[in-house]
């Protein structure tokens, strides 16, 4: 029996850019934190929904730990309820009429889940929030509850659909740390959809780059994002250009920061405000040369 997720699916997608066929093949071994990266409409969320059992592929096979969840040839489609998949949505999907505690307890199937729930309440620091209703919580608190809820019944796999993208950078950073900590304490195969390269670097050991319904690259994030170890490479958007003599100062937005970079006037002519630019700097390689003593 093979441990982990095996998936080979095909589905016709109706996107804003027209119809397109999604064809994805991937496998994931036990207890790996993986990321799905790619532009909107690439099929990332659809892929998560297929694994969860909320959307059926047109054809293909999905199996988990050797158990077939979907097989179009033998007409197997295990319902979402029976798959034991944890799914966390970007907008949390907490049940508004239940307290935090009732939200967490909703998925309990036995006494062991109950003790797990108390572990998760501690791990995500939710004790103070147990009697509160979701609408009285901040975004970060809601997402903590949603993450804890998805883990209560010990899922085979945890699917995170852009779980942190609605949060401000600081809260996102805190939750990334928490997520990493909880993952180490309770490891489970995890598939994270994210647009944030930093997040993927921080959390994932393996990633898939999806574009137009196909995986165009996979591997450790450092390799996929083209990491040449001796080069510093950042991307940003030109906000302003200011000529000063033979040089030009361009102002570039990089993530939440704004930096000024000096470029030659001739180089600056090719750039205009709004352009996406890559800025790279080679590290200084010390060169050792023998000096001639006269």
């Amino acid at each position, binding site marked *: 029996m093979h441990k982990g997720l095996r998936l080979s699916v095909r589905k016709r997608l109706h996107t804003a850019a027209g119809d397109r066929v999604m064809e994805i093949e991937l496998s994931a071994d036990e207890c790996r934190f993986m990321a799905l990266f790619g532009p909107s409409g690439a099929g990332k969320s659809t892929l998560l929904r297929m694994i*969860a*059992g*909320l959307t059926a592929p047109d054809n293909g096979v999905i199996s988990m730990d050797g158990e077939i969840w979907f097989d179009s040839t033998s007409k197997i489609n295990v*319902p*979402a*309820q*029976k798959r*034991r*998949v*944890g*799914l966390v*949505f970007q*907008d949390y*999907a*907490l*049940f*508004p*009429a*239940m307290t935090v505690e009732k939200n967490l307890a*909703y*998925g309990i*199937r036995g006494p062991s889940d109950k003790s797990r729930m108390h572990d998760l309440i501690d791990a995500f620091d939710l004790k103070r929030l147990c009697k509160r*209703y979701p*609408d009285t919580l901040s975004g970060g608190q809601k997402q903590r509850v949603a993450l804890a*809820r*998805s883990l*209560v*019944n010990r899922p085979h796999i945890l699917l995170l659909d852009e779980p942190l993208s609605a949060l401000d950078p600081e809260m996102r950073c805190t939750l990334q740390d928490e997520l990493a900590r909880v993952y180490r304490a309770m490891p489970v195969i995890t598939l994270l959809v994210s647009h944030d390269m930093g997040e993927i670097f921080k959390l994932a050991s393996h990633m898939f780059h999806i574009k137009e319904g196909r995986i165009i690259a996979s591997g450790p994030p450092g390799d996929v994002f083209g990491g040449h170890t001796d080069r510093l490479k950042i991307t940003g958007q030109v906000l302003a250009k200011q000529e000063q003599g033979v040089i030009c100062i361009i102002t570039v937005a990089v993530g939440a920061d704004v930096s000024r970079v000096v470029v030659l006037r001739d180089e600056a002519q090719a750039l205009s405000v709004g352009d996406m630019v890559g800025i790279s700097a080679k590290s200084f390689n010390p060169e050792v040369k023998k000096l001639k003593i006269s």
Partner: protein
Amino acid sequence: MSFDFVPLWLTFKLAALSAFFLFFCAMPLVFWLYFTPSRTGYAVRALVNMPLVLPPVVIGFYLLLVFSPNHAFGRLLYAVFHTHFVFTFEGLVVGSVLFNTPFMVNPILSGLESLPRNLGEASFMLGRGRAATFYKVLLPSIRPAILTGVVLTIAHTIGEFGMVLMIGGKIPGVTRVASVAVYDDVESLNFASAHVYSAVLFGASFTVLLVLLLVNKRFARTW
């Protein structure tokens, strides 16, 4: 002049019983309409909404035929319930439940459809089936819509006339509800009594709708 309170009592009894029975009958229907992927759902929705567009007397007329002991279905009803549904208060309740179905079903269904789809999906992912999802997650999330359905049913029953007259007749103390009493009194030039019935119906309908708005506003604030 001795004033007859019985029609008012019958009206409010009919409204309360209709809302009570319809509340429980409507839930399985809403459940099915919400979850069914089949196109039959649209046909059933159209049927449910017929009382909104048909003249009430038409519904009353058909119910009169259906309940009639001269027909097979009416005889079957008698065999099961040991009571006639024509010119009886029980008949009024059944007619009223059927007639008010859109007023109960529509607000609840549109409340459900306005919920984010992933609320139900989150419940499925936690291993719960449709019934648990419907009764434990979705319905409690749309309390204002449920209250709207119940209150509209009550208010609409208070105002019902044509269908009630058709299948109930106007048997004093049995099926002569307040709206029918107004009509009767006006016909017999008994304006004082018609005024009282009308004013009470007016006041009751206004109060019920006002309470609905105020309570729903409070719901909106706390959630």
